[in-house]
């Protein structure tokens, strides 16, 4: 795992070093050119002054100071080299430093001085300037013809030039290295300071525990770049907290719902066994225990179905299902109960409407919804089962009169273990899991379920199956029938 800080420091340092190296090279090239030009100027000016010592008189050309080394030129490094040629090409003068050798003569000589590098007699690199010089004339002698033009070569060792350039190089390199080191230190400091909020955030996140999800991270001084992360993290924490609370509530509710019938069972059995009783009393106790047992079984099965729907542990088996037929099959076992409660039942379902869905799951949904309607309708009330295609989806609505659910409670009916207050807990065989199970199943099937309650106390559950709407097949017209 690479450290962001190390990467930033290394990247920035490398960048600064490259920039410094480039500017160093450019600077060196410019300085070198300037120093070389200055060196050449000095050569040319010295050559000119030597040229002024050549005199053209009646004796011909004469070089006044054939041996002119000044005391300051005595050092080897500062020694001067020159050679002067008469216009006819013969040597007029030659410096002693040349030790009798000729300077390699430049072929093309214009009016401007020509520079060239050439080795000195002692083998060191040197630089020479070539130029044509007009010999000086005494005006009083008034010689005839134009003044004689001699060729003069003047040279010096490049040692000093090299030394100066070497010095420049050392200074530039030193400054650059120092600058890179300084830049590394400064970059390291700046990066560390800039990354402090990240470290702080990391520390805060590290401290978050599963039981302390109400904390929020990055309260103060969060840089602009980190605020989206912090915002998303806080949103995530809030969602996690809600999920945890939901889970805890569910576990608590599940424990409660399972323990209550267990407590009932235990107390019934303990009471029956606490003394000798008549066979009728034992029979009654056994019947009660059986009823409690069946009820517990229903709760456990609902919880299991819910867990399976939540965990998507089983695969869906899609097939074409005739919803009307399925609803009637689910309704069959409830007919008797509806009759006993004197409920008027109206069927308004489009027959032979095929929907591609999972038959078993859909049957569970319909069973729960119809069972709820029969249980919670008022005695002698009305039940209506409507099903039709609407907006490319199949909509099934099951309504019952006599609902005690308030409009503001409508969204709660899908909460696990939610029950309206009007019914005694579990005495009706309902534990408040049916509708949440329906919701979980429909989520799985790609449908939706919602509840609605009218001012007149008509409670409706509306199921919409919108998955694969193209698979609808309708084969018959819509007859209506009703049964009481």
């Amino acid at each position: 795992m690479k450290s962001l800080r190390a990467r930033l420091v290394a990247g920035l340092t490398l960048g600064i070093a490259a920039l410094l190296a480039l500017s160093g090279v450019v600077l060196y090239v410019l300085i070198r050119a300037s120093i070389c030009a200055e060196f050449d100027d000095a050569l040319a000016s010295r050559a000119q002054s030597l040229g002024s010592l050549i005199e053209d008189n009646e004796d011909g050309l004469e070089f006044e100071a054939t041996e002119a080394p000044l005391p300051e030129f005595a050092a080897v490094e500062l020694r001067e080299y020159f050679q002067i040629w008469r216009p006819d090409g013969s040597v007029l003068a030659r410096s002693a430093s040349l030790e009798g050798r000729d300077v390699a003569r430049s072929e093309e000589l214009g009016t401007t001085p020509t520079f060239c590098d050439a080795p000195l007699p002692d083998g060191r690199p040197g630089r020479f300037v070539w130029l044509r010089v007009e010999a000086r004339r005494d005006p009083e002698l008034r010689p005839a013809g134009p003044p004689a033009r001699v060729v003069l070569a003047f040279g010096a060792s490049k040692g000093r030039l090299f030394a100066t350039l070497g010095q420049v190089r050392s200074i530039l390199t030193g400054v650059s290295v120092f600058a890179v080191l300084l830049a590394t230190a400064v970059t390291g400091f700046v990066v560390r300071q800039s990354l402090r909020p990240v470290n702080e955030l990391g520390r805060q996140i590290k401290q978050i525990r599963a039981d302390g999800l109400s904390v929020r991270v990055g309260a103060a001084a969060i840089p602009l770049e980190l605020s989206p992360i912090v915002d998303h993290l806080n949103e995530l924490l809030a969602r996690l907290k809600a999920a945890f609370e939901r889970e805890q509530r569910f576990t608590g509710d599940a424990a409660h719902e399972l323990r209550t019938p267990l407590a009932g069972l235990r107390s019934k059995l303990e009471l029956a066994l606490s003394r000798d009783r008549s066979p009728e009393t034992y029979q009654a106790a056994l019947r009660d225990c059986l009823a409690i047992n069946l009820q517990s079984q229903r709760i456990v099965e609902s919880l299991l179905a819910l867990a399976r729907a939540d965990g998507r542990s089983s695969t869906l088996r899609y097939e074409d299902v005739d919803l009307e037929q399925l609803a009637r099959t689910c309704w069959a076992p409830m007919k008797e109960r509806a009759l006993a409660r004197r409920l008027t039942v109206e069927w308004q379902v489009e027959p032979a409407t095929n929907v591609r869905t999972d038959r078993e799951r859909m049957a569970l949904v319909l069973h729960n919804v119809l069972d709820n309607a029969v249980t919670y309708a008022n005695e002698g009330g009305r039940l209506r089962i409507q099903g039709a295609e609407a907006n490319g989806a199949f909509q099934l609505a099951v309504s019952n009169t006599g609902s005690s659910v308030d409009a503001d409670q409508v969204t709660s009916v899908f909460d696990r273990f939610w029950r309206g207050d009007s019914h005694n807990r579990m005495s009706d065989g309902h534990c408040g899991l049916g509708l949440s199970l329906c919701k979980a199943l429909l989520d799985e099937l790609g449908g939706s379920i919602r509840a609605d309650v009218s001012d007149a106390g008509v409670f409706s559950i509306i199921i919409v199956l919108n998955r694969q709407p193209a698979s609808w097949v309708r084969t018959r017209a819509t007859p209506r029938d009703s049964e009481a």
Partner: protein
Amino acid sequence: MRVLVVEDYAPLRESVAQALVEAGYAVDVSADGEEGLWFAQSSSYDVIVLDVMLPKINGLSVLRRLRRREQRTPVLLLTARDSVDDRVAGLDAGADDYVIKPFALTELLARVRSLVRRGYSLSGPVLRVRDLEIDTVSRSVQRGETRIDLTVREYALLEYLALRAGQVVSRTEIWEHVYDFRNEMERNVVDVYIGYLRKKLHCKGRPRLIQTCRGQGYLLQ
């Protein structure tokens, strides 16, 4: 002793009530918080067994309302919620005891007995008045060395008088707290049972334990 049982789950409510009745308590039952609160406020109970998750008014709200009205009746909360938070919430709302479902009936009865004793500021299960000894656990009565056999009603009446030993107990109080005299048609049933008790507790050469305070009630001392 009169106990109110507020529990919405019918099988549990029935068996707890039955067990309490068989243990000699007068029992009233209620299936929701609203009715339970009404019962608790309109009668005097020795113990209230209260479920937490109740329809209409939640058990904790019932408890808080009772305590707000300075009603000190010992309350035993009955609940399936066993987390520390739930227990703390229950006890902080003013509960005297907390029983988690499922529970043993014998334990529930023992806790009810303990709460009855606490209600009458007693420390042990044996009540003593002079040479009379009443064991509230085995429900046995002894005077000196003599064991006295009592019917359930007689025992309940004697236990109530013994719990309030030294105080004059009115007929109405006996009516309220003991067994199911309220269901009797005869108004003088209390006097009849006091007569039975006197006969059974009588020992030659020993003082009478139950005295009649004319116009006020009875006194055991």
